[in-house]
Structure formats: C-alpha cells, structure tokens
C-alpha cells in the first residue's frame, strides 16, 4: 500500500511538478524509448533483489520471468534503435523513475521473509499498473514512428500479462 501510494505520488509529481518542463504525453519517441528502457531495467533490478532475498519459489519464478521478458523487450528496443540509427534521450521521466526505484530498492532491501515477498509482489503490481497506464494513455497515442509504436504495443501486451501475474501473486500471498 505504502509502495502504491509512493508510485502514485511519483507519477502525479511527474505530471504536475515537472509540468513546467514537459508532461509524459509530450515526450518524443527517443525520450520514450529511454523511459521504456529505464522502466525495464528498474524491474530487472527489483527481480534480482527478489532472487537474492526471497526464499519463496513462486516469487523466484515470477522474478525470473521479469528478468527474461524485460531483457527481451530491451533487446528488441536496442535492435530497433540501431536499425533507425538513433540514440535514446534521457529525460525527466527516466530520471524520476530511477530516483523512485532507489527508494523502493532501499525499502525492499530491509525486509525479509513473508514481509519482503508481500511488499515485492505489491510493488510489482503497482509498478506495472502505473507503467501500463502511462504506456496506454500517454505514450502509445503520441508515438510518431510506426515501428516504435508497434514495439510499445507489443511491450504493453507483455506488461499487462505481468500485471495479471503480479495480481495473482499478491492474492496468493495474502
């Protein structure tokens, strides 16, 4: 719950406090590519933490899926950027996501056993919900490049499945 509130607060601040700079919907394709790459890497970091701390086989299975799938998305993204001969551009949203993840990793690192498992699962659910909402409502409608848009759509399908999986995990751990 705490993590969910933090994520919501972060996302609200993204669209309000940083409104002076830009909003998520105003990011260009290369900035969005950077956000997606950052979001993938953040979830991979959470998964590695889960593999290191948790002893729950279901958590391990989920974490391994996150590493495998997010790496697959990043591989596709890097291949597309190479094909287009462009570089992703760092931006306020990537920075904010990375800053938020440091706090969450710090919090998760201090937990053990069932407390860690529950918090990790809750964070995965909240994180995927928040990212999926951004992708569906702010990113995809504004992407200009056709191939980038196709990749984001494929990514969204993957992350929706992750969200469902996380939801199942949260219920099972209650």
């Amino acid at each position, binding site marked *: 719950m705490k993590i969910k509130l933090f994520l919501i607060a972060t996302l609200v601040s993204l669209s309000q406090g940083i409104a002076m700079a830009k909003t998520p919907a105003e990011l260009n394709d290369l900035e969005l590519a950077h956000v997606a790459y950052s979001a993938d890497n953040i979830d991979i970091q959470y998964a590695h933490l889960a593999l290191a701390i948790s002893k729950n086989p279901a958590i391990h299975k989920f974490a391994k899926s996150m590493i495998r799938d997010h790496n697959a998305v990043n591989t*596709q993204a890097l291949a597309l950027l190479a094909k287009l001969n462009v570089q992703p551009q760092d931006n306020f949203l990537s920075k904010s996501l990375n800053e938020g993840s440091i706090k969450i990793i710090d919090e998760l690192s201090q937990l053990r056993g069932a407390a860690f498992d529950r918090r990790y699962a809750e964070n995965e659910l909240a994180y995927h919900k928040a990212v999926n909402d951004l992708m569906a409502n702010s990113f995809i409608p504004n992407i200009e490049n056709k191939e980038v848009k196709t990749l984001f759509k494929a990514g969204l399908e993957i992350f929706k499945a992750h969200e469902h999986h996380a939801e199942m995990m949260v219920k099972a751990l209650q």
Partner: protein
Amino acid sequence: MKFDFTRRLFLSRTVAAFAAAVFTPLSKSLAQDRSNEGRDLKVKIHQFSFVPDKLKVKTGDRITWVNLDFVPHTATAKDGSWDTGILKQNESKTITLTESFGNEYYCDLHPSMIAALQAIN
C-alpha cells in the same frame, strides 16, 4: 441386337455390383481408418494468447504449438500430463495426445495465459 444390348446391360450391372461389393467395404474401412488417425492441428502463441484458445481434439491428434512472441512461453497441462517446455520465438513443439491428456493448459511463465483442449472422442 436386342439380345446383345440386354447381355451388355446385364454384364455391366454385374460388374458394377461386383465392384460395389468388393470395393465399397474396402473404401469405407479405409475412410474409417483415416478418421481414426490423428490429425495435425496448430496453436499459435501470439501477443500473450493461445490462438485458438479452445481446440476440439481427440486422442491421437498431433498438436503443434508455435511461439510467435519475442518472449518465451510454454504450453503446460494444468494436471502436468504434458508440457511443451520453454519455446523461444519461432520455436515449436508437437505433442501427440494420449488417452489421458489434460484438457486445461497455461503458460508456466505467464500463468494468466490459459486455454483448453476440448475432447470430442
């Protein structure tokens, strides 16, 4: 002339009747044999879905699952009776259904992906 015609008609009918007697049961049994043979069926794994997600099958059918997504998937029976194992992009696996095949299946890596085989034996 009339005799010839009658005789020819008789002969042709006899041959036809003989052929029908001999070949009909044979072709019928071949057809039955064919219907008892397993069929080759295909399920695509695409955009985190099994397509089709419901498939009418019978014992002996050979089902091929092919993964078109760029992330890996499996098709795994809920009762553990069969499993494709991990399929990377464009990999496929064919499983022949035995009598005790499990109907409901899912992706072991993404458990929200579910589908079913509907037995028509």
